[in-house]
């Protein structure tokens, strides 16, 4: 029997990807877990492993081509099974197989949690017409359009309906499958978008990453009730401590930035104020409070913002954190981060101080409850006793989802973070 391996629905709302490179050719044998294709999705460039052993019978799509979730990637003649008609397994059953065997990235992705890197719109998950739990609201669509979308692996929610009241009709699905369907950007009244290339403007197609960032930012702003508090903390002792430690580390050609200290301080404060380490589930009307502290770190890359996760911050030492962050940053520049690297974050730290910024109003990495922005440490006049002195001040900007965290609690939390940063020795006690 032949097995048609379709571009799996790897969750997170991804519905298309670009084929970067094929690892297999027609006639080539493949083992389960071997990479089939390198795929660029909204978030990552990742290898998609084969879920089965067998021989490649056919390959669909050429390098550079955009494929939709559910499109056939390869047809595999399964090992040890007589060749019969290709099984046109549905997407659902296909995913089940992948999950069951738990191959590489694909298997993990399917079962991954909800709090990945700047999670994309929940819609992809909500609208899935294949009965997956979490079905909350449905895009307006005709029954036939739904049946076709499900069958063809089209994300019906990504389609702009041409029927009455924006209803997705059969022809919309057919157009989407033909690839001629462009999702129209809704124009607000009076908005003038230049339509043609002119000397005054350059038109630049959105990259997958930019599209994801756009969607996530909008979702965060539309879903969370943003509130931001600004503080500055005197960090003379931290400056001194870091200098001393770096002196020691210089022999090993290692160097600590401020970020590992900040992560430790945040991690310690979060254990005391766990609501900032939570997320809200409106559907079930409950708060999901995370016991682990996995901190997402915003990293600036030439392609755009990426936010991988440093796990179990409270269980790791400064050096471990530092080297882990270095690896993530390196991977981010090379775009070799795996989807798993983005998933599971419970709180985010963004360090725009490294670029020279002071204050900002950070956008929460939804559905997390809070994000802490770190500004540039500056020498500033400070008052000690009744004397004016020169001290090092670190600006902090904490955005919280006011649905989850009250103002007093966010003040207490940031005060705790400030305590740790101004008295870094106290981190030894946590």
């Amino acid at each position, binding site marked *: 029997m032949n097995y048609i391996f379709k571009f799996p629905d790897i969750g997170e709302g991804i519905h298309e990807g670009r084929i970067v490179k094929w690892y297999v050719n027609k006639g080539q044998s493949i083992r389960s877990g071997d990479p089939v294709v390198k795929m660029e999705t909204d978030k990552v460039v990742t290898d998609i492993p084969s879920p089965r052993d067998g021989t490649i019978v056919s390959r669909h799509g050429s390098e550079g081509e955009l494929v939709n979730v559910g499109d056939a990637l390869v047809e595999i003649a399964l090992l040890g099974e007589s060749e019969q008609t290709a099984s046109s397994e549905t997407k659902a059953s296909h995913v089940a197989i992948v999950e069951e065997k738990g191959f590489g990235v694909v298997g993990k992705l399917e079962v991954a949690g909800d709090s990945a890197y700047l999670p994309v719109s929940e819609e992809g998950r909500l609208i899935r017409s294949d009965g997956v739990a979490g079905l909350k609201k449905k895009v307006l669509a*005709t*029954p*036939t*359009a739904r*049946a*076709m979308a499900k*069958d063809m692996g089209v994300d019906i929610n990504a389609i702009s309906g041409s029927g*009455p009241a924006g209803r997705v*009709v*059969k022809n919309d699905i057919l157009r989407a499958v033909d690839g001629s369907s462009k999702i129209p950007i809704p124009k607000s009244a009076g908005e003038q978008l230049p339509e043609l290339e002119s000397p005054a403007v350059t038109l630049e197609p959105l990259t997958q990453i930019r599209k994801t960032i756009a969607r996530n930012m909008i979702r965060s702003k539309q879903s969370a009730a943003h509130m931001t508090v600004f503080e500055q903390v005197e960090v003379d002792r931290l400056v001194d401590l870091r200098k001393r430690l770096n002196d020691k580390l210089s022999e090993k050609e290692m160097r600590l930035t401020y970020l590992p200290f900040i992560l430790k301080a945040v991690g310690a404060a979060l254990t005391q104020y766990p609501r900032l380490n939570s997320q809200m589930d409106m559907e079930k009307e409950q708060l999901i409070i995370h016991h682990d502290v996995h901190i997402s770190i915003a990293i600036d890359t030439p392609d755009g913002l990426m936010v991988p996760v440093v796990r179990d911050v409270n269980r790791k030492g400064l050096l471990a954190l530092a080297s882990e962050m270095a690896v993530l940053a390196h991977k981010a520049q090379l775009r070799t981060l795996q989807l798993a690297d983005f998933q599971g974050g419970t709180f985010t730290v963004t360090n725009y101080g490294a670029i020279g910024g002071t204050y900002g109003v950070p956008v929460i990495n939804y559905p997390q409850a809070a994000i802490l922005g770190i500004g540039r440490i500056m020498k500033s006049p400070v008052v000690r006793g009744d004397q004016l002195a020169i001290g090092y001040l670190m600006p902090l900007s904490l955005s919280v989802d006011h649905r989850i965290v009250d103002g007093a609690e966010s003040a207490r939390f940031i005060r705790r973070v400030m305590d740790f940063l101004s008295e870094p020795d106290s981190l030894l006690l946590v």
Partner: protein
Amino acid sequence: MNYDVIVIGGGPAGYVAAIRSGQLGHKTLLLEKDKLGGMCLNWGCIPSKALLESAKKLVEVQRAEEFGVTGIDVDKVGFDWTKAASRAERLVKRLSKGVESLLKKNGVETEIGKAVLNSPNEVLVNNRLLTTRFVILATGSLPMPIEGDVFSVKDLYPFKELLKQKSLPKRPLILGDGPSAIEMAQFFSMVNAQPLLVTFSERLVSMADPYISEVIGRQLQKSRVMVKAFSDLAWNNAKRLVHHDNWNFEYDALINLADRQAVLPETKGFSLDLHQGFLQTNEHLQTSQKTIYAVGDVNGLSIFAHAASAQGLFAVNHLSGVQGLYPPKAIPLNLYTYPEIAQVGYGEHQLKKLGIEYKTADFPLSANGKAMAEGQVDGTVRIHYEPRYGEILGVIIVAPQATDMIAEAVSLIELEATVADVARMVHAHPTISEVMMEAAFIAIDAPIHR
């Protein structure tokens, strides 16, 4: 400009367009050369349905004994043409008044008179020249003269003239094979006249699913309507006689319900493009002059009043800047026969021609409790559906209330429903509508009552 919109023709296309135009705040004038309500209300759909109802009552009374009604002497039961016709006229008057008041209520001015288009934005009526931004032509259609010189014109009258007859023709010759010809032929047979139906096309109601043609053929045979092809007949006008070999038929009335032709508006100094004798329109129902729309029979898109009204609304929406979709996918085709027949969506002939893959599921009324109780088991529901997703492509209903029941199928097709949806929808019991659900059960291979 004197007006925003001048609508010419007060039938179901024109008066509906005028009402909507008035509602949208356009300064609107409706011009009608004869009677508000047009062909449909005055001389078509409405009076013919009234007459058919009279005939149906007669048949039901004749059958009443079977249902336990006593005291009816079937031999004495008869049909009073004058009463039936005057009932129809009263009904027409009442509805006509209703149209008049609706127009008034919505701020539409009306005027009786023949309109001439002096320019794309000027209308001449009753010796006045009116200027307007838009014109909606809804001038309708008339029976087309039969080709060849076989009739003296005075003998040939359209349905419009029938209502004026003092007595009911006993041996009417009905020309045509479309819905209204079939309905009238059956009407005459039900009131004990002896009609002859003279057909032109290869099959009856050729626009409908071939299954409907078959059903109609059986119905006509059952009600003893003689059917002859026009091309087979020889005519003797003087003797009002048609014959074919040794068979001959002497008629006392000729009713032309065959093809219709557009009533084209008179234009001065400009012309409007035609397509096969009808006003040519684009996808917005605009004629070759963009400020002039053509709706209803005059554009040749449909012969049905409900399609005409839908077009009227569409045109007004369009000239008001509202983009809509015309045509709607599902325009029902109704035949007020006995029992009634209705179809919506694709017929089998269209599916074959277009190469659309389909399957058909059907369920007879003879297995339906309500139909049996009513003693009307002659009928069926047929669903043409797309086999992969089960989308309903076409529905045919033959049943006593088929013309009302088809509304369910119109919704289903317009909303792209599948047979699985219909099977899942609860249909009240006992009703004839259950047959729709039963047919859907068959389509999903899970029949209950079969």
